[in-house]
């Protein structure tokens, strides 16, 4: 009787979540793999399998390679720059005040900075995109160009120059991300026992030495997590690029990424099969990245 009650309870609690999850998450994912092998346009009632044609076509598609190149740039720059800036700030905020009295202190005003730095993280990416579209306006009505003109320089077409647009968008991504990683790394630094720093400071280690010899090695796991998160973010970028650069990745595809192409191919061009093939490629790229990062950076844990 009690066993029956237990199983009844388990089944009742799992029924709704499992049903919702299966219908709206798992089934679309499975269908995506299936549809990627067809030329389905969303209306035909029967699936027509065309083997790997979508993938062959995709690998000959210039836009696909351009999107991939952009992901490559994002993947190299976004994690690196964000992690470096965030580590620097986190270190200053937590330990930059030097040894005073009982332990290491943060720099003066660190609480204020932490609150301000983190704020962009809670703003919607779409809202941030619209905001920066105004900031980046190509004439003096944009904030940056307004300042440049004031200084007697020529305005720069941040989002118009093909060689500049992706970097301008990347800057917004970094702008939004840094605060989160400052908080993440700060939490990691707070977990490092204070005596380590005090002992090192007693031995005459400077701030740079403290950072490279104590903070960095002990923060390795946290940094690795951050790196994976940022890398996965580099395979997204949808909302920001759609708002800042439009669905063609203006100027002239220079900023396009796979998510934007998937969305456009599926819903503007109704090529659901082709779009799903892109989705499959994106999936394998993301998973490969995550596994590679976790594998290559794995190492003996340092026990605190």
């Amino acid at each position, binding site marked *: 009787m009690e066993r029956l*009650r*237990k199983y009844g*309870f388990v089944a009742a*609690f799992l029924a*709704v*979540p*499992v049903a919702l*999850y299966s219908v*709206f998450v798992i089934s*679309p*994912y499975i269908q*995506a793999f299936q549809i990627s092998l067809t030329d389905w346009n*969303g209306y035909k009632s029967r699936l027509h399998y065309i083997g790997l044609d979508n993938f062959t076509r995709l690998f000959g598609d210039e836009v696909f390679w351009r999107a991939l190149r952009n992901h490559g740039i994002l993947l190299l720059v976004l994690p690196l720059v964000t992690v470096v800036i965030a580590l620097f700030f986190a270190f*200053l*905020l937590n330990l930059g*005040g*030097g*040894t*005073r009295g009982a332990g290491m202190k943060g720099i003066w*005003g660190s609480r204020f900075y*932490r609150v301000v*730095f*983190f704020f962009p993280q809670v*703003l*919607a990416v*779409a*809202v941030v*995109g*619209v*905001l920066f*579209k*105004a900031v980046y*306006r190509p004439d003096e009505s944009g*904030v940056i*160009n307004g*300042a440049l003109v004031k200084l007697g320089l020529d305005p720069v077409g941040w989002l118009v120059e093909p060689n500049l647009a992706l970097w301008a968008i990347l800057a917004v991504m970094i*702008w939004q991300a840094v*605060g989160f990683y400052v*908080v*993440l790394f700060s*939490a990691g630094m707070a977990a490092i026992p204070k005596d380590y720093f005090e002992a090192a400071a*007693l031995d*005459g280690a400077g*701030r740079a030495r403290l950072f490279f010899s104590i903070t960095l090695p002990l923060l390795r796991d946290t940094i690795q997590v951050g790196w994976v*998160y940022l890398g996965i973010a580099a395979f*997204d970028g*949808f*909302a920001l690029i*759609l*708002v800042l650069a439009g669905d063609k990745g203006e100027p002239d595809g220079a900023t396009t990424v*796979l998510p934007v192409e*998937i*969305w456009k191919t*599926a*819903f503007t061009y109704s090529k*659901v099969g082709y*779009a799903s093939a892109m*989705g*499959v490629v994106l999936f394998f790229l993301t998973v490969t990245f*995550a596994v590679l990062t976790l594998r290559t950076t794995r190492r003996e844990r340092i026990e605190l």
Partner: protein
Amino acid sequence: MASTSSDTATSRPAGMSRPATTPRPARPRPGVLGGLSHLALFIWALLIILPLLWTFLASFKSNTEIFGDALQLPGQLRLDAWGRAWDKAHVGQYMLNTVIVVFFSTLGTMLFGSMAAYVLARYQFFGNRVIYYFFVAGMAFPIFLALGPLFFVVLQFGLLNSHIGLVLVYIAYSLPFTVFFLAAFFRTLPDTVAEAAAIDGASHTRTFFQIMLPMAKPGLISITIFNVLGQWNQYLLPLVLLTDDKDKWVITQGIADISTIAGYEADWPSLFAALSMAIIPVMIVYIIFQRQIQSGLGAGALK
């Protein structure tokens, strides 16, 4: 800026006179370095505050002012753009829609997520591991992979362009992380309390709602914040699932749309007013709950 660096310069020597804990003579600590650290932090803070402040100020400007010198203050305090953004550009409607959708989807996510996590974490039964990994696997898939098929699944259920459809989809896509996080949390709770409740004759359901949930409060708060923010900021899913019916749009869609419209209707002040309206409530909530939000999101990432 000058005042900050001079603050550091004057506060340094006080910090330098090391207390008795250090036997060594105070190492000369370069005040320049401290000043530069402050400068770096200060500049980054400005980089964040200025664009937001500028947006806010631009909502009081006229069109001519907006297209003139960007760094000028508004000539007078014009409030009409705020009214236009609220009514004509439907920001009020979009906000209300977002609040409704996020309220129900977060509620549903927390209810179903904690139910599933609890059962998976604390009950032994056949298939437990399989169902757990079935949920957790969802975290590895990019949502873009499912985009096309998801549209047609929602269409088949007749839930396209409806808030119910969006709420259900939000719940479904928030489950993997919520279950993963909360299962880890429920596992850490002591068995004794639940056993005592069972001996006193409490049913499984009652034990869950009246004993285990209150004990899991810290974990629930973190993951609730995580879900509210994620769902409030969602842009892709509404873009796909609520395309046609403008009355049902959420705020992110609305703002992106106003940005496009502002181009040909030449009503830039109301774009900035709309932006401010989207930012200010979030800012107020953030300032009130910033501790919980920071630790909530941080805990979420580290699990």
